[in-house]
């Protein structure tokens, strides 16, 4: 027998065939994964022809099928193209829509059609179908056949029946045709949708065929990755993240007994509970705590006012110890502490001698930006006190330093980037010349009086070479 020979003589025919078969299986698997069980297979042309015949016949028989019980003759006369018996399992949700359309077309009546029409399907009318699932066109043809009551009933019953998935015996008519299809594996694995009580359609269709195909076992394709953390959570901001988390997901958590007010330096997290009655206590509590903590109280109140019943009492442990590395992921510097119900003295005790502000700035990334701002403000104001400028007679501005150092640097960086130039003498002629003149002048003056150089603006120089774009070229390719 002549077999298809590839141009490549190295591989044997057998290998080829095997390879091809394997590829087909893979393709089928991919297909099924993507489109669900029952994707298009070969021989659709034959199927189409058959369906077309069916359609013509049904077109004539349609008026007769109006009555529920009169579906018998047409269906039996369907004969060879009794595809339904060997219909593949429904593969597309489109079938639902089509059914709905057909049912609507027929007047939208949803009679509980008698069982007989369904059972009329000749079980033995197994068409010589390919052992594969029917194509989409086939199903469409079948649906368009009208079989009005059955369609209606099907859809009706589908909506009625619970579409549970479970191990269901494959209708015998189908088994013979479905033996080796990849679909079978899936069906055996997952199970068919349950057959509705009304039984079968007049054409012997299993109502389970009308149901969307069971999900294949392959991993879900195309769905977004599961996010443990909501999108938009800023990284390295454990505090804000925790706050966001709490604000947006107010889950009930338990408060630790107020007794535990002696805080060892590093306590584990103590969750906070929802306590509506306690809410009123917060604003009224005057505590002899350091202003740093007080601001946290204010902030906590702010947060509390946002949520209806959720109370987050955030209590920062003002560390007397230096914190070199980043704090624990979800904790600000210390742990959550029950805010209410605790007597002031323990707080006072701990806050007693406020630690002197160390010259080295701690890692404040985990702190709330407002907290951080206050810290830096204090730092700067204390630093400013030592170096008091002549014109600085203004009282300390509580709103100053809203822009952090990082932000200023960031803006400066952008501005500097905008100054990039490959040819400064071209882009910034006047500044360059001016600076040269100034330098010369200073040289002269320096010879006489040793003055300091004025700072020069050093714009980032862009290397000229790197910016020429060369498209990737392959040897022997067109255009090379």
């Amino acid at each position, binding site marked *: 027998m002549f077999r298809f020979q590839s141009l490549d003589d190295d591989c044997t025919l057998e290998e080829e065939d095997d390879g091809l078969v394997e590829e087909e299986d893979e393709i089928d698997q991919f297909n099924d994964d993507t489109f669900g069980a029952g994707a298009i297979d070969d021989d659709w042309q034959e199927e189409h022809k058959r369906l077309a015949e069916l359609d013509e016949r049904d077109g004539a028989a349609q008026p007769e099928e109006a009555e529920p019980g009169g579906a018998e003759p047409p269906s039996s006369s369907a004969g060879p193209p009794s595809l339904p018996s060997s219909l593949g399992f429904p593969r597309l949700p489109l079938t639902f829509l089509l059914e709905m359309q057909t049912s609507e077309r027929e007047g939208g009546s949803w009679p509980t059609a008698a069982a007989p029409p369904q059972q009329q399907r000749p079980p033995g009318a197994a068409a010589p179908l390919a052992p594969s699932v029917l194509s989409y066109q086939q199903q469409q043809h079948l649906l368009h056949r009208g079989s009005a009551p059955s369609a209606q009933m099907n859809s009706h019953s589908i909506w009625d029946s619970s579409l549970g998935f479970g191990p269901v015996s494959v209708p015998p008519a189908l088994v013979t045709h479905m033996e080796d299809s990849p679909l079978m594996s899936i069906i055996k694995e997952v199970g068919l949708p349950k057959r509705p009580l009304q039984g079968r359609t007049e054409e012997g269709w299993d109502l389970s065929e009308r149901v969307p195909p069971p999900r294949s076992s392959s991993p879900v394709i195309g769905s977004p990755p599961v996010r443990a953390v909501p999108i938009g959570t800023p990284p390295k901001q454990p505090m804000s993240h925790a706050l966001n988390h709490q604000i947006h997901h107010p889950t009930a958590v338990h408060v630790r007994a107020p007794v535990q007010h002696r805080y060892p330096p590093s306590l584990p997290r103590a969750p906070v509970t929802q306590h509506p009655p306690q809410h009123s206590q917060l604003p009224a509590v005057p505590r002899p705590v350091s202003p740093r903590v007080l601001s946290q109280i204010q902030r906590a109140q702010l947060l509390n006012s946002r949520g209806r019943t959720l109370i987050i009492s955030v209590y920062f442990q003002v560390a007397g110890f230096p914190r070199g590395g980043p704090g624990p992921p979800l904790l600000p510097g210390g742990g959550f502490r029950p805010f209410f119900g605790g007597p002031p003295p323990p707080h006072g005790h701990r806050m007693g001698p406020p630690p002197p502000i160390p010259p080295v700035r701690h890692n404040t990334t985990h702190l709330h930006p407002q907290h951080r701002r206050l810290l830096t403000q204090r730092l700067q104001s204390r630093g400013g006190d030592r170096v008091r400028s002549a014109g600085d007679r203004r009282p300390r501005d509580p709103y100053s330093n*809203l822009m952090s150092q990082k932000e*200023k*640097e960031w803006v*400066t960086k952008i*501005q500097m980037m905008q100054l990039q130039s490959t040819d400064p003498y071209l882009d910034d002629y006047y500044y360059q010349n001016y600076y040269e003149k100034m330098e010369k002048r200073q040289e002269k003056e320096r010879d006489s009086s040793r003055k300091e150089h004025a700072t*020069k603006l050093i714009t980032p120089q862009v290397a000229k070479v790197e910016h020429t774009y060369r498209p990737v070229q392959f040897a022997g390719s067109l255009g090379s």
Partner: protein
Amino acid sequence: MNYVPGTASLIDDIDKKHLVLLRDGRTLIGYLRSIDQFANLVFHQTVERIHVGKKFGDIPRGIFIVRGENVVLLGEIDLDKPCDTVLQQVSIEEILEEQRLQQQAKQETEKVKMQVLKDRGLSIPKADNLDEY
């Protein structure tokens, strides 16, 4: 000037009192709190100052965010300098009234001018519409 020597940057103007003139003619005075690369400005304790003739009135506005493209000019106010001004501060209602009168008078003259030009077959497009084309 310690950030970017040899250039003008708004970084050094932060937390200082400024006067900004906007493209729609408004004058705002406030503390410059924040900027960005587009020269969008965040003003704190902003006051809109309306000048009519020798009179002026202040309308407190709170916090303003000004889009950078709408700024005509921006200048720092030196708080230490003695404030010797001939301008007379009046109440808000009064200054608004003055402003309304001023606008009205201006429109009248403009209308007459346009008419005269039209009679002569000339037309001068309004400057404020030019941006829209």
